[in-house]
């Protein structure tokens, strides 16, 4: 199958990507906004619908493929990156997307996520992080804040949470970004950057669960607080937000009052910095309290992809081979003898 994904697709519209299935998330769920944003973005890929595949695991977010008029597979808990790896390796003509959640990707499927990222398989991984288990009705997740009161932690969770972006960067991810369910324009922009990236693209989408963890990201959404909380990363621009600026400090980065720092000290964002320590430091600016939360593309670097590496070896070995004849030679090679 051809390696080139781009086709002269007829101009499709968002509605062309809607499936006939009735969407069944709770009213007010952030997944609706993400679905609408993805449907409106997909025409930009310039692909026929049949050349797009969505793979998901289990959880509220993982119902996503049912609602898209592409090929889709709603698989089992945590395994979407593994299944998608098999598909992406064997089908270079497809644009393969993984939709997952904080429980699916970071708890039960943590192993598959980190290995997909380290291999740099050509997958776009959208992690809807609502910091709670929704589908199983409200247990704490690996991104829930310590002390969280849930049905399974009535005295408060004693789990320490993951920082998903730090984890992705530690897994050698080549593309790492974060966006918000409620910011349609930003979501669209990040999806575009992820789609353009060759290799694994990891996108964390903060997503509100109105039933079990409502307003978890309110600080990033409330007009009164968001400007002080959100750091919008823009490539080539100094990192400033509200009346704050980001400067180097010790081994990492630090937020300071802009008035206290010289213009030359302000860190200029560059997503293509090879050293992952920079993006890692960015990922550490926001704690679980979301006080200085960068959104945008943290890291985007080039590295050979696993799937292409695998295919190249097979293609080189198989070029011009008559398989039946080769099989005959395999069977008859080495020590054989004939009985008359």
């Amino acid at each position: 199958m051809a390696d080139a994904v781009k086709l002269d697709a007829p101009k499709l519209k968002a509605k062309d990507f809607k499936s006939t299935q009735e969407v069944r998330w709770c009213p007010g769920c952030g997944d609706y906004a993400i679905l609408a944003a993805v449907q409106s973005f997909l025409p930009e890929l310039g692909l026929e619908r049949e050349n797009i595949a969505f793979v998901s695991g289990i959880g509220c977010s993982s119902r996503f493929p049912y609602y898209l008029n592409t090929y889709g597979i709603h698989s089992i808990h945590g395994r979407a990156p593994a299944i998608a790896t098999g598909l992406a390796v064997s089908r270079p003509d497809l644009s393969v997307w993984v939709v997952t959640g904080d429980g699916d990707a970071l708890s039960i499927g943590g192993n598959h996520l980190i290995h997909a990222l380290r291999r740099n398989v050509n997958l776009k991984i959208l992690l809807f992080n609502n910091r709670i288990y929704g589908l199983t009705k409200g247990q704490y997740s690996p991104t829930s804040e310590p002390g969280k009161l849930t049905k399974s932690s009535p005295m408060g969770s004693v789990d320490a949470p993951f920082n998903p972006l730090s984890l992705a960067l530690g897994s050698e991810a080549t593309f790492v970004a974060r966006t918000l369910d409620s910011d349609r324009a930003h979501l669209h922009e990040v999806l575009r950057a992820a789609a353009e990236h060759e290799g694994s693209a990891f996108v964390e989408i903060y997503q509100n669960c109105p039933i079990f963890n409502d307003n978890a990201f309110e600080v990033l959404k409330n007009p009164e607080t968001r400007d002080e909380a959100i750091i919008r990363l823009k490539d080539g621009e100094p990192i400033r937000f509200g009346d704050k600026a980001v400067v180097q400090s010790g081994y990492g980065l630090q937020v300071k009052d802009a008035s206290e720092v010289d213009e030359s000290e302000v860190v200029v964002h560059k997503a293509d910095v090879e050293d992952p320590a920079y993006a890692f430091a960015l990922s550490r600016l926001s704690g679980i309290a979301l006080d200085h939360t960068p959104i945008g593309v943290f890291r985007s670097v080039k590295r050979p992809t696993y799937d292409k590496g695998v295919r190249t070896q097979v293609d080189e070995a198989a070029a011009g081979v008559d398989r039946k004849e080769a099989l005959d030679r395999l069977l008859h090679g080495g020590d054989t003898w004939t009985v008359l």
Partner: protein
Amino acid sequence: MNTVRQLDRVVIRFAGDSGDGMQLTGDRFTAETAKLGNDLSTLPNYPAEIRAPAGTLPGVSSFQIHFADTDILTPGDQPEVLIAMNPAALKANIRDLKPGGTIVVNTDEFTKRNLTKVGYDDNPLEDGSLDDYQVYPVALATLTIGALAEHEVSKKDAERSKNMFALGLVSWMYSRPTEATEDFLRGKFKAKPVIAEANIAALRAGWNYGETAEAFAVRFEIPPAKLAAGTYRNITGNTALAWGITASGVASGLPVFLGAYPITPASDILHELSKHKRFGVTTVQAEDEIAAVGAALGASWGGALGVTTSSGPGIALKSETISLAVSLELPLVVVDVQRAGPSTGMPTKTEQADLVMAMFGRHGEAPIAVLAPQSPSDCFDIMLEAARIALTYRTPVMVLSDGYIANGAEPWKLPELADLPDLSVEFATEPNAVDAKGEEIFLPFQRDPVTLARPWAVPGTPGLQHRIGGIEKADGTGDISYDPINHDHMVRTRAAKIAGVEVPDLEVDDPQGDANVLVLGWGSTWGPIGAAVRALREKGASIARAHLRYLNPMPRNTARVLEQYDKVVVPEMNLGQLALLLRGNFPGTEVVGYNKVRGLPFTSNELTDALEEVIKNG
């Protein structure tokens, strides 16, 4: 001048420390023997530890070969010849040796320290305890080092070649040609020609030692076996399995995708297939067993023949994904090279205790086809069958090999490739239904009326976009469905699909036609059962035998076959798993189990005795 004596068969066991290269020595002796046209069967036996402490009993590695001028079925119950490279190898193997058997022993290792290490108070070579055997004491290391004096290799490297000296000597004793081994050594040590030449020199020195040392008055010849006409090669089960997977790709015209995670004793299949990229075979060494089967399933969805290979513990991990494949109704071939369990058990030892897991080890009603090869070479054919069923019925198929078949070798009459089955599949390319408005639509779960298989529409096919998943689907549309009647219908339909898989009838071997007892086996017990049946018939007993290669569904005539016998003896290397299935499926049958779980194949002698007992008791 040596005397040459003709033998019709012999069983030889090479035994030494894990670091002594006994498996290689055995492999080469096997290749030489195959080249001569003897029928043969082998049994490697080695510790799981790569290098257990040198000179200890747990570190002993052995390789047994049975070869003959007639067709044979097992690697032999008791060796007649033991090559013991050290005291541990002697101690670990002497009780298996036939009374009056021959021992070639490396005297260099029989030091006070080494003897003490394995609990010998006195040197068995001197205390008379081996008087009942024909013992050939040979200073293998000393002789090898001496033979390599002119070679520019270190003393250590020279000493390491002693296994080739031993091979040369035994090759002389049994009149095996060594040219192919010389070629093999040149290839193996291509980058180190000095080492290659040293090994070859050691091999020749061993041969010459046999010819000149007066101790060896007799050498033996075993004429070629009168096998069916054709071209033969020697093959192990794991290699045949890998080649069967490769051939399935050729026969179907599909790319093969293997997802695997290393595990004993299945890893060799991954190694072998990794060399077969020229056939369009992709191998992915996944991060774990679950990812291995997941990637294979993902590739199957994309239109490849997805395969995953493992052993018991790995299959347990794959269980959830196999159930998903049942629900998605996609082709998937799962190979379980069984080993002694539970848990880590004895990874290098054989067992047949995963049958019930293969049948039922999933959640929900999740039937799959289950096949089992009966010998190393049968692995090739069984893989083609597994691929046929997986592709035709869009289902997972489990293949149950085991450690005995995986590592054992036998001559294989090479198939004519013109006879390869046609496994080509038709992908769905067009809508297959019309909706209420008269528009053409695609129903991903609209079934073939004969096979009950659903259409296989791979991503990339225009107009057939659809979503599948583990949630219950409405038959036909594939839409999510919680409808009680639909679920009941789907569960029964998936079961009916597997029950309806076409498999050949069970063949019964009952030459007299008056037998009251049937011995029914499955998998790797085929050889030992066959040898036992042969021995009984030679004694004049009447016994019927049949062997199940298809465990699910069982051949259509199974009930009819079982009804004809008063008793059905089922030897299994488990505590009665096929027996359990037979009692459940064919309640009128009197099933008599013969069960052992020692990590070793049955001997034909013990089976002969057990079967004789059943026949005698009517």
